[in-house]
């Protein structure tokens, strides 16, 4: 266990070092937050309440989810494992005396915490200067939100880990990443909140793993999640376990069969 904590801590330190890059990311996330907010407000101006959300909830949702993009890895670009498979550097990782999947989880968790620390607060604060916000004051609600983010992060990691593993067979994970990004961006509620979708589409999208990454933590924070915290956690954990299990099986298969690139 200690080795994974150390790996996570060192990864965190490495990601905290890229401050100017994080500042650029914050600026971009915030600008896109503005555009998304205006789009949502165009809808909310005509319908004051949609599925229990008013305009302030919609504004909060845009900026909050922009803030979650980096730590949650919504862009589904895989993990840092993918490029290492492409270049053959993964050979070094394979003979480390650690569990392969846990090792990458530790490194990626360090990255997520780092970008959460550097990139999550500013977009929400800037958004609050310009738009009405509806952030709850109850510390319990925030604790529940963080818990859901943790579970959502596990789902996101296990998906991105699976994408990276594809490179063992196709030599390039970017194709798989592109598809997963397109589908995931829509299904997570980044383009439109799932709660603003037509009810039948919403009820289908709420079952995909991506719902646990963005929409469900936000709904829990707003207190509008149907089934409450217990359902949110159970749903997310079920997907996380399933996907982590799949990752474990594929890792085993890759270890036995695959020839490493490079020379």
């Amino acid at each position, binding site marked *: 266990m200690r080795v994974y904590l150390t790996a996570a801590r060192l990864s965190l330190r490495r990601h905290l070092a890229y401050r100017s890059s994080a500042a650029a990311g914050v600026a971009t996330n915030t600008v896109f937050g503005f555009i998304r907010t205006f789009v949502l407000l*165009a809808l909310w101006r005509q319908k004051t309440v949609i599925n229990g959300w008013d305009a302030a909830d919609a504004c909060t949702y845009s900026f909050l989810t922009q803030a979650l993009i980096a730590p949650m890895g919504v862009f589904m670009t895989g993990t840092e494992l993918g490029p290492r498979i492409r270049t053959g550097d993964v050979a070094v990782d394979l003979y480390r005396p650690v569990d392969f999947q846990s090792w990458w989880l530790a490194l990626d968790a360090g990255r997520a915490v780092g970008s959460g620390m550097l990139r999550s607060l500013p977009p929400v604060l800037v958004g609050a200067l310009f738009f009405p916000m509806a952030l709850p004051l109850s510390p319990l609600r925030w604790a529940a939100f963080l818990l859901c983010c943790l579970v959502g992060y596990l789902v996101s990691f296990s998906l991105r880990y699976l994408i990276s593993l594809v490179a063992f067979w196709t030599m390039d994970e970017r194709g798989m990443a592109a598809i997963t990004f397109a589908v995931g961006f*829509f299904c997570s509620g980044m383009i439109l909140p799932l709660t603003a979708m*037509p009810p039948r589409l919403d009820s289908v999208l709420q079952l995909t793993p991506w719902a646990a990454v963005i929409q469900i933590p936000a709904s829990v924070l707003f207190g509008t999640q149907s089934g409450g915290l217990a359902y949110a956690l159970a749903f997310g954990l079920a997907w996380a376990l399933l996907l982590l299990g799949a990752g474990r099986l594929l890792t085993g298969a890759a270890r036995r069969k695959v020839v490493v690139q490079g020379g």
Partner: protein
Amino acid sequence: MAESVERPLPAPVAYLLLVRMWSRSAWQYRASLLLTGLGQILTTSLDLIAILVLYSQVTLIGGFTLPQTLYLYGTTRVAFALSDLVASGVETLADSIRLGTFDLVLIRPVSTLAQVMADQFTPKRFGKLVPAAATLVWALIDLPLHWTPARIAVCVGTIVCGFVLFCAFWVLSGCISFLAVDAREVANTFTYGSEFATEYPLTIFGRPLGLALTFVLPVAFVTWQPALYVLGHPDPFGLPGFLRLASPAVAVVFAALAALAWRACIRRYRSTGS
């Protein structure tokens, strides 16, 4: 052979040769190329679904109907997809400056801009064009418009000018990478951000921001102003009518600005060293 060494290749020829080289390189990873192409088709289509979802709840957004918004979306996306095809190689510039490989670009006897724009070209980018063009055709069929020659000319001109403007944005975003290597994501705001902003009626941003997007950053001239002409829609911000036909002038000015900025950046460039 000796002749070609003496005389550098003209930029467009060099560009096309580089594009062919990168395409052949991308073609080596066929499965990945097809999947990324499919990914681009999906991304664009799902954005379209989002617009349809919005209109399933209301009939007007920012005072515009669904076919009108689809027209804005279609022209924007086609113009952007074309510029993405031609110029988005600029995106890798920040990395090559940081790694010092940009020095190689400078010592080759070929236009720097041609090399940078063609960098890592991949045919996957045609994927974006498919749903964009389909949406535009859909909008054109659905719009209750009488097509005069002037309308048709402005419609075609919208795409040409939008393409030129977006290319200028790509080059300017590349110039940002020269100033601050870490600012790659800020550069994205310029390109993807202006694309995103101009997919919807400009009215949704309200008057102050709408005017800023017209006169500070000429995003409104990509599709909004000429679209008002084609759709025969009065300007919600009450701006003078000649602006609707001003896109070609704005595009020329911005292309010139981008070219000048690029030259200045190349002249000032100091290698990152090791």
